[in-house]
């Protein structure tokens, strides 16, 4: 039977709202959360009641692993944008293991993790923060290597969500010279179902939306080639940027605080990596939708892309350094030097060739005009 989109299908059942009110979340806050999350997932608003229902029905266990990271993603999630969003998601999820926020310690914590893996094999969600070292004994927890833990936890999970650039692509720990042999989750556990939510930190709205998508549809959202969900990473920052009109116009800030910068011109010449970065920062923004780097006057540094740090630096130049040359030499200076050297070399060759005798063809046929 076809539901009429104008009628009840858009409303959340009264008993669900009452339950959330009993937990201290006002119906206004709950509906705001469901609406915002449905919008973040780029779903039509008719899905909003399904989202609300899914939050009601499920309470999947979560194991949150942290390896070589700075806890920035946990922080971003716990202080997520809307005051109640974290409350709602933390209420919905059963977070059985999270090194930063769990009350248990030592053997008790390890037992809780082992129990979840055993009882909910193939049903729980693994969230991984930080990259996984493979050299030496870096980041061993409870006497086990990070790689060993990741293989067990992610290998038995229904789905693994790699949060932050370190877990998704290796991030800062994997930057040259990569002393710990750091790997991303996908590289470390090739068989696992991994969804990447890169960013430094990830945007909590995207994690919330991913979890809600999983609860609502039982599957992970559609992804790009790099395993990032299209709803959040399907468009380039540059193509949604509020400064884009200045880019197309040819109006650029040349330095921080100059006339162009004060007028909100494009930050392209200050090394903004918006043209090479896919993320929904311009639309979702950070901190309750207050702002994001480009809005605040600093170029994007490409934190949601693979190779972040190595190939996105220097942050204040458009292009990476040319390997083997000093940091002060840009590729275009080298190229200009190359072209000039070519011209000089052929100039010398030309002078020598012009005075060369006896190499011209068909000398006997040349008729010298008087």
């Amino acid at each position, binding site marked *: 039977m076809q539901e009429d989109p104008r009628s009840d299908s858009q409303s959340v059942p009264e008993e669900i709202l009452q339950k959330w009110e009993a937990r201290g979340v006002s119906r206004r806050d709950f509906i705001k959360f469901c609406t915002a999350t449905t919008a973040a997932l780029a779903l039509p608003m008719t899905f909003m009641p399904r989202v609300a229902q899914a939050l009601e029905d499920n309470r999947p266990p979560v194991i949150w692993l942290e390896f070589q990271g700075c806890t920035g993603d946990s922080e971003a999630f716990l202080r997520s944008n809307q005051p109640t969003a974290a409350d709602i998601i933390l209420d919905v999820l059963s977070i059985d293991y999270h090194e930063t926020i769990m009350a248990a310690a030592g053997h008790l914590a390890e037992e809780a993790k082992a129990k979840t893996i055993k009882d909910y094999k193939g049903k729980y969600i693994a969230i991984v923060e930080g990259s996984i070292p493979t050299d030496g004994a870096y980041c061993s927890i409870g006497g086990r290597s990070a790689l060993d833990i990741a293989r067990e936890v992610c290998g038995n999970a229904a789905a693994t969500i790699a949060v932050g650039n370190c877990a998704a692509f290796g991030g800062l720990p994997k930057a040259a010279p990569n002393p710990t042999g750091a790997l991303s989750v996908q590289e470390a556990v090739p068989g696992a179902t991994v969804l990447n939510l890169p960013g430094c930190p990830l945007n909590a709205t995207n994690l919330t939306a991913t979890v809600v998508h999983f609860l609502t549809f039982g599957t992970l959202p559609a992804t790009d*080639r790099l395993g990032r969900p299209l709803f959040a990473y399907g468009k380039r920052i540059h193509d949604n940027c509020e400064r884009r009109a200045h880019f197309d116009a040819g109006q650029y800030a040349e330095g921080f605080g100059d006339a162009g910068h004060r007028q909100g011109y494009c930050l*392209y010449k200050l090394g903004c990596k918006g043209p090479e970065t896919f993320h929904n920062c311009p639309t979702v923004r950070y901190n309750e939708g207050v702002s994001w780097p480009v809005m605040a006057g600093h170029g994007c540094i490409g934190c949601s*892309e693979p190779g972040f740090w190595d190939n996105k630096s220097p942050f204040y130049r458009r*292009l990476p350094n040319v390997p083997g040359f000093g940091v002060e030499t840009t590729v275009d200076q080298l190229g200009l030097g190359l072209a000039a050297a070519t011209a000089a070399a052929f100039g010398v060759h030309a002078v020598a060739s012009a005075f060369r005798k006896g190499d011209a063809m068909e000398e006997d046929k040349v008729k010298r005009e008087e």
Partner: protein
Amino acid sequence: MLEIHYVWQWPLRICHWVNALCVVVLSVTGYYIGDPFAIVTTPTPYVMGTVRFVHFLFGYVLLISLLVRILWMFIGNSYASWRAFLPWLTPGGRRGFIKMLRYYTFTGKQITYEVGHNPVAATAYIGIFALFLIQILSGFALYGQYAPGGLWDSAVGWLLPLVGNQELRLVHHVVMWLLAGFIINHVYSSWLMDIKERNGTISGIFSGYKYIEPRDIDT
């Protein structure tokens, strides 16, 4: 006895000059896109937008021109054939290559006299085709980022995770400068051959005709 040979057929000459125009336009517009040196102050400008449009337009023109040229390698005359670019495959070609290289380095007296490309030039042109291919692949991969899942992203977007989009940009810049170096070399060598071979090397790419003394031809 000097003979007049029709060497460069008209599709080849058109491709040559279209390529030349593309290299110039794409280099100038591409340099501006990489480093927008002119700051615009007029009230309603669209400078970068226009420059990028021209760059993409000429990217398509170069692509079409190259496809035509590759087609012509199979249906054109023997001087345009793909075989003309592989002098190394024949003993005569290998001898001619060494002879030409010795001429350029002042260690040999005689030019390798050919109706079409000499073996060193032909080898250089293989390199130029490779550079054009790199520019087209990297250029369209970078261009395709505006529409993930679109035509160009599906066709060449796989290069982005493979090489990295910043690395691809770096390559796109480096190859532009290599092409600039090639043009300097190419114009100089054409001039040198024009005065030394006396067979209409430069006029040949305008008219198609070269003036050949059959007894001097290296085989």
